[in-house]
């Protein structure tokens, strides 16, 4: 019922074209993440689906019906904003009930829906408070709760975790994952610039760059078979090493990509030799930054801790099966 389709959708602000030829098809109940750097158009795309911006060209369909000219409130969507967008002068209950009153529901219906959502998100004790009396995490839950009460066909999230501190971000991410399990029929679209959120939450990821779709695929698709150098660099942390020069030319490519976790230290002799410039110890992992001879700077991920010191010389070998090759335009080269 609530599939979402975008057919040749484009969006311009005046003369500036921010989205071009977007073609996407989202199935009902799917969790899709739009990810990309700042200014890539991901939030604009979400706002087009929400109806907060007009579509310049192309067609949007929700549940098979054209939506270009349908009012936001009639699209069967709910949205969670980055800034929460709670009404500051209303209590939590009133915030959650305000939209429902508009939908001409009975008082008892409204109370039932608000209490259901509040129970689901464990914000029942907060119903009488004003937003300013809540922590950031609680505000975000209220915003999610308000969206749930609308019983939407499509749930939109616009960078919902950006304003939370790191620990809370992880907790809330897990809650969103749990919410998704409780609402299996609801299609969810989630915008973020954080590839970790994208990887952990998404059924499918849409990578946007400069107003066009770079790649659509499951998280592992994107990780293992990036369709462009941009996607290869954007997905995965720490970032993939991109090496140019002779080492790439040896493979007949302009650029050779290898992820830090796909290079192993081989003290007894390896393909590359280099001098360590910096080690970052995270406890679970250590990132070793190496200036490799004839290759350039390379970052290597080593599990656990190591005693490698800056200034020492080490030898290493890239996993040949995990090498990615790109041409000068950033397109993958077949091996």
């Amino acid at each position, binding site marked *: 019922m609530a599939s979402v389709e975008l057919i040749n959708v484009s969006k311009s602000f005046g003369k500036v074209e921010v989205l071009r030829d977007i073609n996407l098809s989202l199935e009902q109940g799917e969790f899709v993440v739009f990810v990309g750097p700042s200014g890539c158009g991901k939030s604009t795309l979400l706002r087009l689906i929400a109806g*907060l911006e007009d579509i310049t060209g192309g067609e949007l369909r929700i549940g098979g019906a054209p939506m270009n000219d349908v009012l*936001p409130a009639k699209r069967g969507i709910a949205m969670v904003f980055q*800034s929460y967008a709670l009404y500051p*002068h209303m209590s939590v209950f009133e915030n959650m009930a305000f939209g429902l009153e508009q939908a001409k529901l009975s008082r008892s219906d409204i109370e039932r829906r608000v209490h259901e959502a509040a129970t689901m998100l464990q914000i029942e004790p907060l119903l009488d408070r004003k937003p300013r009396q809540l922590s950031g995490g609680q505000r975000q839950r209220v915003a999610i709760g308000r969206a749930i009460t609308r019983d939407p066909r499509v749930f939109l999230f616009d960078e919902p975790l950006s304003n939370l501190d790191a620990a809370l971000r992880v907790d809330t991410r897990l809650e969103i994952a749990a919410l998704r399990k409780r609402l299996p029929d609801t299609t969810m679209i989630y915008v973020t610039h954080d590839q970790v959120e994208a990887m952990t939450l998404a059924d499918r990821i849409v990578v946007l760059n400069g107003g066009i779709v770079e790649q659509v695929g499951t998280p592992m698709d994107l990780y293992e078979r990036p369709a462009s150098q941009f996607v290869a660099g954007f997905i995965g942390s720490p970032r993939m090493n991109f090496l140019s020069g002779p080492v790439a030319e040896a493979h007949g490519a302009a650029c050779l990509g290898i992820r830090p976790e796909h290079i192993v230290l081989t003290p007894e002799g390896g393909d590359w030799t280099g001098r360590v410039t910096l080690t970052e110890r995270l406890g679970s992992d250590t990132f070793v930054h190496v200036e490799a001879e004839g290759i350039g700077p390379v970052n290597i991920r080593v599990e656990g801790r190591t005693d490698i010191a800056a200034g020492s010389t080490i030898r290493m070998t890239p996993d040949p099966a995990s090498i990615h090759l790109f041409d000068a335009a950033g397109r993958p080269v077949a091996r």
Partner: protein
Amino acid sequence: MPETSRKSRLSRNRTRSAWLFLAPMLVTLFIVAAWPLGRTIWFSFTDASLDLMADAKWVGIRNYLEYVDWGDGEGQYYGLLADARWWRSVWNTVRFAVISVAFETLFGLVIALVLNQQFRGRGLVRAAVLVPWAIPTIVSAKMWAWMMHDQFGILNDMFLRLGLISHPVAWTASPDTAMIAVLIVDIWKTTPFMALLILAGLQMVPQDIYEAARLDGVPAWRTFRKVTLPLIMPAILVAIVFRALDALRIFDIAYVLTPNTDATRTMSVYARENLFDYDQFAYGSAASTLLFLVIALITITFILATRMDLEGRNT
């Protein structure tokens, strides 16, 4: 150990520099506000006149209220509190303040809402709206006096041509229209000030909640009433207090536009007449003192009343 000696040297230093920075303002306030006010109150209890200010003698509350016994069993109350002209001017002032501030708030709100929208040339319009506020009051009063002139005024000319009136109206001279004339000029002049203050309040309202309301399908009017208005209410109330303080002191427009009319004699005009025109300096001082008390009372009442409303559970 006494409290002061336990304070660190750093905090003592801070306290000292705070007083040092405050001193010029305190001295200035004393010279330009507290001292003249105190003198006025003092004169109101004396028999001072313009040429004999130094010899002013204490006469008690005679300027405010005095019962004069005529010796034949009858008598009469004299003094400001028994002066019908004074009470007329109090009523004129309060009526003027209530009506002008009400219209200025309403028009100011509408203009602020328009100026808060995105449109081409908004900066220019925002500047243009301020023009009436920027013109000195005496100039605008003279300008309007000419426009409202009974024989040569453009207002009568336009209304006659449109057939709204059958014969020229003496807007500023006729007791029926004098107050309306003063109100028109004041509303014209001060609405921009209200619009600006309310616009500042509107710009503090986060935009994202309007998008949330759109997604909820809340119609524009309900969004305004339930979201915008409660959020800008504090700004509006502050603007009303500012304006009301000003309106209750109204002098220049009434004095220049409609001189010597009972219909528009305000408290300030009444006080000035007695202080300088009638050489009743003590009596005028009493009027000034009461003017101060009336304004203080109205303002405090308004602030208390609206604060109760503000802290209410919901708007």
